[in-house]
């Protein structure tokens, strides 16, 4: 029993680290470090850099452009990515629809869609939730009616993250309501957002940003060839994807990075700003979080060890999702608490590289801490709310 790496793994770590040092664009890094929001262009440029390196899709099979990495290599990569404070891959294409296409799509679909996803040439978004279907996804109502070689789509998708930037959307739609179980009669279909009848309406979220959208479909005609797999089996395809989303949602490496930043902030506070160095209550909260995060790290390692010997990640991934998001949210709270009064000014304009630091309110990203805290309450809601995860664990792990 040991957690050390083999010498090959150590070499790999060095290679990844060198890559980040050499290729991670300085301007994007600067934005990240200063909490300046990234533009779509930034994401694409960075993902294309990874693509050129052949590292855009660590989880994909090699034949479709994946890396062929072992679970440990993926773990190392994720760690280095977090340590470099590099942005996470926008998941909708590479993390979500890509795997569904290469697993359940036909050859033509793979040929048509995978290269664009891999190269980050085509931007995807997710059409799952509907105004009436949140946690109870299977109650979705959006209709796709077959008419000749097309499906006619009518309905509304909501909470569509970055939908206003996307070229394509993948949707779960109801192709039949004459079914025994609600999970049947659902299909998985790909839609070009520029099709007539698709309209995107912003939803402003709690912190004041446009991150999510409502996407309306009014008699949208979609070629039947855009349907993935069999009609009526979309639920199965979509579920696999959700489970995948859950493991990656734990975000251990990212939380470790943030924890180290928080400790640094506490250590480095000088007398021009409030000092928490001697605040035993605050330090205790950091200590508690450090232990919780260690627990999460080793739980992930245990899952990794299981995956390494060929086991699929099971309902245990729900556990990682719950604790992972709880820890992220606790970190949000601690950053806000550390910022104190300086968490309260609403000054998005100062998170712009061209703004004058002399005119900034607060220290570093203090004022953004509240926005992150508010916005990230979503972490325990999306990707299957933490309550739903507990239902899953109760049923599938505890057998209740």
């Amino acid at each position, binding site marked *: 029993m040991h957690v050390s790496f083999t010498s090959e793994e150590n070499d790999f770590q060095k290679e990844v680290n060198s890559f980040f040092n050499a290729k991670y664009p300085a301007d994007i890094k600067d934005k990240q470090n200063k909490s300046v929001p990234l533009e779509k262009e930034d994401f694409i440029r960075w993902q294309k850099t990874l693509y050129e390196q052949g590292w855009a899709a660590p989880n994909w099979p090699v034949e479709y452009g994946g890396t062929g990495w072992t679970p440990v290599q993926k773990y190392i990569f994720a760690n280095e990515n977090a340590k470099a404070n590099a942005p996470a891959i926008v998941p909708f294409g590479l993390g979500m629809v890509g795997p569904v296409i290469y697993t359940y799509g036909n050859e033509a679909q793979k040929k048509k869609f995978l290269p664009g996803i891999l190269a980050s040439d085509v931007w995807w978004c997710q059409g799952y939730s509907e105004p009436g279907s949140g946690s109870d996804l299977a109650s979705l109502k959006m209709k796709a009616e077959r008419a000749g070689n097309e499906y006619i789509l009518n309905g509304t998708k909501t909470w569509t993250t970055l939908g206003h930037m996307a070229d394509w959307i993948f949707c779960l739609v109801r192709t039949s309501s004459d079914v025994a179980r609600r999970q049947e009669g659902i299909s998985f279909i790909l839609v070009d957002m520029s099709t007539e009848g698709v309209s995107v309406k912003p939803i402003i979220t*709690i912190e004041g940003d446009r991150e999510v959208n409502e996407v309306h479909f009014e008699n949208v005609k979609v070629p039947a060839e855009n349907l993935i797999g069999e009609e009526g089996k979309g639920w199965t395809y979509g579920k696999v994807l959700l489970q995948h989303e859950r493991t990656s949602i734990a975000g251990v490496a990212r939380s470790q990075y943030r924890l180290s930043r928080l400790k640094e902030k506490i250590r480095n506070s000088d007398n021009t700003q*409030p000092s928490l160095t001697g605040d035993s209550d605050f330090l205790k909260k950091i200590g508690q979080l450090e232990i919780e995060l260690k627990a999460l790290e080793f739980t992930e390692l245990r899952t990794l060890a299981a995956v390494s010997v060929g086991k699929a990640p099971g309902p245990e991934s729900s556990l990682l999702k719950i604790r992972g998001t709880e820890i992220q949210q606790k970190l949000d709270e601690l950053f806000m608490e550390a910022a104190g009064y300086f968490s309260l*000014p609403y000054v998005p304009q100062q998170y712009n590289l061209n703004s004058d630091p002399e005119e900034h309110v607060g220290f570093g990203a203090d004022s953004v801490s509240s926005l992150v805290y508010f916005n990230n*309450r979503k972490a325990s*809601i999306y990707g299957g709310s933490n309550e739903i995860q507990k239902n899953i664990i109760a049923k599938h792990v505890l057998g209740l």
Partner: protein
Amino acid sequence: MDLSISEEQSAIRDVISRFIENEYDFEKRMSIAEGDSAFDSDAYNFFVEQGFTAIPFSEEDGGLNGGPVETMLIMKEIGRGLVLEPYLENVILAGGVLKRLATDDQKSKWLSNIINGELQSTLAFTEPQSRFNLNDVATVAKDNGDKAIINGKKSFVLNGKEADIIIVPARTSGSQTEAEGISLFVVESDLPGISKNNYKTVDGHSASEITFKNVEINKDNLLGEIGKGYQTLESTIDDATLAVCAEATGIMKSLHDKTVEYSKNRVQFGLPIGGFQALQHRMVDTLMACEETESILLWALTTNQDDSSSLKKAISGLKYQIGIAGKHVGQEAVQLHGGMGISWELDIAHFFKRLSSIEILFGNADFHMKRFLTLSNN
């Protein structure tokens, strides 16, 4: 023992409650929050007309002789209506200092105008480095004959943009964190040397960073004795803490009620989500948190106002409770509303943000627990 409120008191509550219902709905509130002005003058004038700005002042000062119960009733409704108008800043903060320290001349110059709504004012209670320590004052007032010259920076000055006068705690002697040596000055905000960086806050209120560079003020503007301002500062902030705790109590109740209501209507898996036992028990927990907060508010309100150590202890106990229970109730309301809980269009998000701000304002839970324990040991 009598835990009920008087008829006069309930009349006050009814006036503001009706005003919010009829004239200050969520849409109106958001248009103010998202607009350029810090607040709505008509709404503020209504408060003035109704005499709310006169409540906590003595009759000889032109006030209505109200006490913490009246303030509590108003602030609770301000919480329920997410009201943005600077009642706290003018009446509790600036008014609180003036009623305690101002001479008759000073009162007729400033306090009367606060009561009649003609003057906007505030108290600059924090500095960049001070966090929640009121005694950490690096701003300096230098004696210069019949003038005092102020240098320093005040942070998070609520109503700073609109304030005609700012009450500024400045150090006239002692080291940076000594309670002794802090003096309170009224500073007219149009004086040369004052620069303001104004901003809206995450909860739709407004505040400023204010820098004082060789600002010359008349010594007449000193409130009370030189170097002896700390106790008034602390008592005033205690009043304000009690006030925002009442506001938070109103917000918590609203969040809880709205969540229960939402859970009765939001159907998932063929059932209103309020039918799921796990969520039921969680809403029972938030109900209990609200009831306990209400109870602790009562404790603070019924504590002998002249027993300053007991009063401080009760207020710190209350603020601790708001810090803990407020976070609990706020987070649960958002979580149980799901995606809707983090939508700008729904009031839940804005209640949550205001509640989160109040958790920090005048000291967070940890700060007040420490103060509570210090006061317990005495």
